[in-house]
């Protein structure tokens, strides 16, 4: 009996270790594989010049600009909407049919494949609203796609803030809005940021929804009404149409490095914020 318990414990530890190592191993392998094939292509001209011959040669500057423009605009639209909805659901309504419907809607949307959002964006933003293939159409579509994630994570983060903070603020004569902005949101910010980062990750790597709504032109965009090609789409087209595998890997390497860099910066900012607020 006792021996069996010890054996079970050892097996469990072994299995848990193995899963952790395997997970980390797969991640490292993918990263290493992409960087191994992509890094040799990288140079200053690769990121500072426009592509020529459909991307067979030249750089990928327009796709870098396109990726960041699309992602930043999508986050700028989805973050206030998502956080606002979360605040409304948690602080301004009592639990009831309305909150259940909104929450159910958000959860259902979170599970919809991105291509469906692409199709919707194409029909609604590109055609019906006449925005054409553009950064704006793409960003609106991506915003709709990541909104449920931001709502869910923000809602959980806000709910996790102890009620005692709210009571202290109310008891000092704070209004609900003052209480939300000064006592609740600062404590919920790390959790909210997690949701925003998840949304950013999905936007930056999205292809299907983007091709439908932002197009795939290789011209450098000059306004939000211009079409763009993102790095993920560029990578997909280069590989899919056999234009240039080395440049595809180079693009993938830049994409991966960008995502890592943004995550590191966000994490660093968060640590600084937490250090000041605890």
């Amino acid at each position, binding site marked *: 009996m006792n021996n069996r318990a010890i054996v079970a414990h050892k097996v469990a530890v072994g299995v848990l270790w193995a899963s952790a190592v395997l997970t980390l191993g797969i991640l490292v392998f993918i990263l290493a594989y992409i960087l191994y094939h992509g890094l040799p292509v990288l140079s200053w001209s690769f990121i500072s010049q426009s592509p020529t011959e459909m991307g067979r040669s030249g750089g990928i500057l327009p796709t870098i600009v396109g990726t960041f423009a699309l992602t930043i605009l999508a986050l700028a639209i989805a973050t206030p909407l998502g956080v606002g909805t979360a605040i409304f659901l948690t602080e301004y309504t*009592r639990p009831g049919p309305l909150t259940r419907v909104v929450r159910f809607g958000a959860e259902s949307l979170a599970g919809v494949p991105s291509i469906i959002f692409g199709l919707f964006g194409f029909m609604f933003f590109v055609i019906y609203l006449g925005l054409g293939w553009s950064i704006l159409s793409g960003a609106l579509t991506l915003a709709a796609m990541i909104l449920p994630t931001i709502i869910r994570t923000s809602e959980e983060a806000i709910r996790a803030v*102890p009620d*005692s*903070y*709210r*009571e*202290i*603020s*109310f*008891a*000092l*004569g*704070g*209004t609900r809005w*003052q209480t939300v902005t*000064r*006592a609740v949101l*600062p*404590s919920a910010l790390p959790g909210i940021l997690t949701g925003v980062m998840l949304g950013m990750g999905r936007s930056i790597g999205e292809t299907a929804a983007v091709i439908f709504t932002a197009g795939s032109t290789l011209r450098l965009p000059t306004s939000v009404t211009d079409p763009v090609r993102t790095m993920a789409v560029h990578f997909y087209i280069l590989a899919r149409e056999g234009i240039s595998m080395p440049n595809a890997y180079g693009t993938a390497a830049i994409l991966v490095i960008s995502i890592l860099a943004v995550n590191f910066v966000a994490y660093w900012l968060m640590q600084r914020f937490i250090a000041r*607020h*605890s």
Partner: protein
Amino acid sequence: MTNGGPPKLAANGLSYHYGDLQALRNVTLEVQPNDLLTIMGPTGSGKTTLLRAFNRLNDMLTGTRMTGRLDMDGLDLYGPETDPAEVRRRIGMVFALPIPLPMSIYDNVAYGPRLHGVTRKAELDEVVEKGLRDAILWDEVKDRLVDSALRLSGGQQQRLSIARVLAVEPEVILLDEPTSGLDPISTLRIEELLKQLRERYTIVLVTHNPQQAARVGERVAFFYLGELVETGPSQRVFTRPLDRRTEDYISGRFG
């Protein structure tokens, strides 16, 4: 004591229900200006409910029902013209557990004044220092105002909670078992502090500890199962209680 004016706080025929549970039964009680009233009673006697009703903190809850009237200076606290946020500013509340907001010592005390529109640094510095001095915390923290308030000891955190309330210059301070989580020395410091503060504020202290009521209160009220059993000068209540239940409680037969 009274100068003929209305009492600072008054409850008139107050009953309070949480769903089916009746927490207060027809309570009528007056607190005169600069009075230090101690409300004692065992757990579940409705003491906390009374405080939260005065400070309108139970507004947030669902399924509650209140009948009767609560007044401050003769004005209906639940009247249609009354602004709950203004009520809460004038009636400060210190909670049972010392909970700092997750920010610096300075920002904790400045939280209230900032809510009410104080933004000038010099002015904030002044209210923060005054609040901390009045709460007898200044000397211990003056060199580390930017440190997180979470690093203070429990007793210091509770005095910080009091400083936070004093900084909005309330007229009444309600304290809900403020020493229940503290060691005896910290408890004594808070009790001393209350005696000093009563010169400038009307204070209502809730405690489940009759010894504390005997030490601090000038006037005590005994609550039992939502009912105000008796009230009077502390001396009289502790030596010659009128009600059998009061006698049982202060002699430690239950509670």
